[in-house]
């Protein structure tokens, strides 16, 4: 006979150090004493996230979520919950906040994530159109084609408050309205699946996990604006996403969900793929259109906006993958439902690729208005290896760094802009005290200089100059005047660049200067990198008092820079040292340090 109830006890590192294994043993004993071993199983799990509030116990099948459970709480959980079927309120997580964020959606117990875009990812087989259809797939398309006029569709999206998830946050309904208002004739619907920021993989995962949602959304958009042709611009570096899209398009055509006279409605729409060669600037909409037309991908000034003059001079709407994946749900559940989620100015959810120094890196989707603290410490399970949170980078090379004082800022387009970052497409990179902010700014500048198309001078020259200054500073040759010059260049690039790439490329520098000026000054005045990242500024030394002469470090050193006699204090030859830090991590006596 199967069990009827399961107590999942978190066995992640943080929870086990909080005695979760003793707790599990106590629960097992209690259940046995109650004679229920046949009916209730205690299971130790992997990390359930939420490490801040561990140890965690989750009861299945209903999903009760207990936090901060101690071994001595086991008796009460068994007596009350297992035997009598009553929850133990004092151990529950406060669920009030989640309820207000996600509107009337019924959340039985505490849950931080809310999946609209990723609703089918990890649920359906992406290569089976039947799976998508069974989960209400193409139901929004039915509704649109048979019950709504094109202007009703535009209106619905407008009222929902949906804004572009590709970075700029432009209201999607307004964009559709512009294109729909253009005179009849050939129009185009384009999906931007170029996704090139370092650390971002939201759009790729969405296409890999649920390609039909984007096809359905593009068809709906085509109907709304009067386009009969769509293109998905996807980078060739995403082979699995391309394969799944190809399979999906083929299936949709076979069933008549793409092509002529869709479902007998009289509306015709078809989609083709266009592959990008992996240039970051081709994600910018005007460069992307050039690339689809077969030209070199270079941006042009706007206006005219693509909605008026786009592909081959025809009205064209360009939307991001994530923006589109929201559309079928908004149509099915109505704009009221969607606009009930999120903040005043920013409705719905956001998908983030959470990476860097967090315990649980992953692809997450949260209601707008969730705080960075909730994302990093509850969903992400906190900082790895017991290190301290230093900053988070959102918006990739166009974004900025967010220091600890803003951990509790509810995330939306406006709040992030106010603190000098941007929402961007959703990369979220977490850093700890071993990351150097100057080095990070240098990393992003290196990227944008590499990816600049070179058409306009502010971006081409300004970016190179900024990068040179950053290299000078991290090499220990910088001056305070350099910092002042950098500020001026940032401003000029921001104001005078042709496209978003150059306009935002200085953001990582600007925001690190804003929040971590002291570290820049340390680099130039004291020739010091407190994170120990800037190799030329780091000096490893051995404390002769603590050194036991065990020779471990000398044997580990790849440069042969450490010498000394056995049982005598060793020393490091600074001219040979390559600052790899191998000696410091090898020393068992804490005798080696860097500064």
């Amino acid at each position, binding site marked *: 006979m199967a069990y009827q109830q399961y107590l999942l006890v978190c*066995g992640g590192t943080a929870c086990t150090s909080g005695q979760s294994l003793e707790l599990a043993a106590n629960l097992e004993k209690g259940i046995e004493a109650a004679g229920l071993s046949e009916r209730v199983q205690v299971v130790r799990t*992997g990390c359930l996230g939420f490490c801040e509030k561990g140890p965690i116990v989750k009861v299945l*099948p209903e999903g009760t979520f207990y936090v901060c459970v101690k071994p001595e709480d086991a008796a009460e959980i068994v007596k009350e919950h297992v035997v009598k079927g009553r929850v133990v309120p004092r151990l529950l997580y406060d669920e009030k906040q989640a309820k207000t964020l996600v509107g009337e959606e019924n959340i039985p117990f505490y849950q931080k994530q809310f999946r609209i875009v990723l609703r089918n990812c990890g649920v359906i087989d992406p290569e089976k159109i039947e799976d998508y259809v069974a989960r209400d797939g193409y139901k929004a398309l*039915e509704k649109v084609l048979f019950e709504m006029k094109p202007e009703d569709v535009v209106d619905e999206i407008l009222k929902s408050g949906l804004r572009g998830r590709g970075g700029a946050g432009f209201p999607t309904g307004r964009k559709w309205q512009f294109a729909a208002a253009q005179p009849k004739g050939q129009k185009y619907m384009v999906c931007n699946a170029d996704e090139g920021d370092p650390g971002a*993989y939201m759009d790729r995962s969405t296409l890999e996990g649920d390609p039909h949602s984007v096809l359905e959304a593009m068809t709906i958009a085509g109907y709304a604006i009067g386009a009969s042709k769509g293109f998905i611009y996807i980078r060739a570096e995403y082979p699995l996403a391309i394969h799944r899209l190809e399979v999906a398009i083929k299936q949709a055509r076979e069933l008549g969900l793409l092509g002529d006279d869709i479902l007998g409605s009289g509306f015709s729409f078809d989609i083709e793929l266009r592959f990008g060669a992996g240039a970051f600037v081709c994600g910018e909409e005007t460069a992307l259109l050039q690339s689809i037309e077969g030209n070199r991908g270079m941006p042009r000034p706007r206006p005219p906006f693509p909605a008026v003059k786009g592909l081959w001079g025809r009205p064209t709407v360009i939307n991001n993958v994530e923006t589109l994946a929201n559309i079928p749900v908004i149509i099915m559940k109505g704009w009221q439902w969607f606009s009930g989620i999120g903040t005043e100015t920013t409705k719905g959810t956001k998908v983030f690729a959470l990476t860097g120094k967090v315990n649980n890196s992953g692809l997450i989707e949260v209601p707008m208005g969730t705080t960075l603290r909730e994302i990093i410490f509850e969903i992400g399970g906190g900082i790895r290896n017991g290190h301290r949170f230093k900053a988070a980078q959102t918006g990739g090379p166009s974004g900025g760094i967010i220091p600890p004082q803003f951990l509790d800022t509810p995330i939306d387009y406006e709040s992030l802009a106010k603190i000098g970052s941007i929402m961007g497409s959703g990369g979220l990179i977490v850093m700890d005290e071993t990351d150097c902010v100057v080095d990070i700014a240098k990393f992003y500048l290196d990227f944008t200089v590499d990816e600049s198309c070179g058409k306009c001078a502010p971006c081409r020259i300004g970016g190179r100059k900024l990068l040179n200054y950053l290299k000078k500073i991290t090499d220990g040759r910088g001056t305070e005047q350099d910092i002042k010059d950098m500020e001026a260049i940032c401003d000029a690039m921001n104001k005078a660049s042709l496209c978003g790439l150059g306009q935002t490329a200085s953001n990582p520098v600007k925001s690190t200067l804003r929040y971590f000026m002291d570290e820049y000054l340390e680099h130039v005045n004291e020739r010091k990198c407190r994170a120990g990242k800037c190799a030329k500024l780091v000096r490893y030394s051995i404390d002769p008092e603590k050194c036991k002469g065990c020779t471990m470090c000398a044997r580990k050193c790849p440069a042969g820079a450490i010498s000394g006699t056995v049982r005598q204090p060793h020393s490091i030859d600074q001219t040979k040292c390559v600052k790899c830090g191998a000696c410091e991590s090898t020393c068992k006596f804490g005798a080696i340090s860097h500064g």
Partner: protein
Amino acid sequence: MAKLTLEALRKMRNETQQAMSMRDSSKKDVQVIVGMGTCGIAAGAKDAFGAIVDAIASKGLTNVLVRQTGCMGLCHSEPTVEVVAPDMPAVIYGNVNADVAREIVETHVIGRKLLDGHICDRPSVDIIANK
């Protein structure tokens, strides 16, 4: 395949929904679902998939359907495998290498017990099923 009319699409949705709710207990009533996004595959999801298929064949199980799906979002614990069996809660296992995959078949599918040490939390409620 013939082009669908509106009625045919609705019929197809109903039929697949019923098939997915697995009311027909004489056939496949257990589903083992392997996350096969780029992340899962890079972490070894194909090995896990192969080990599950082999274990099911060698045990002569005929009631188990092995499926693939996209990324479940748990990149820190890839490869991930979900098991849906009657009268048991659907759970997601993380860090499933070939050995763990065999244990899942042994313990969960055959033994009808949850496997220790590998369960991950389900990321969120399902907005489609929770209509």
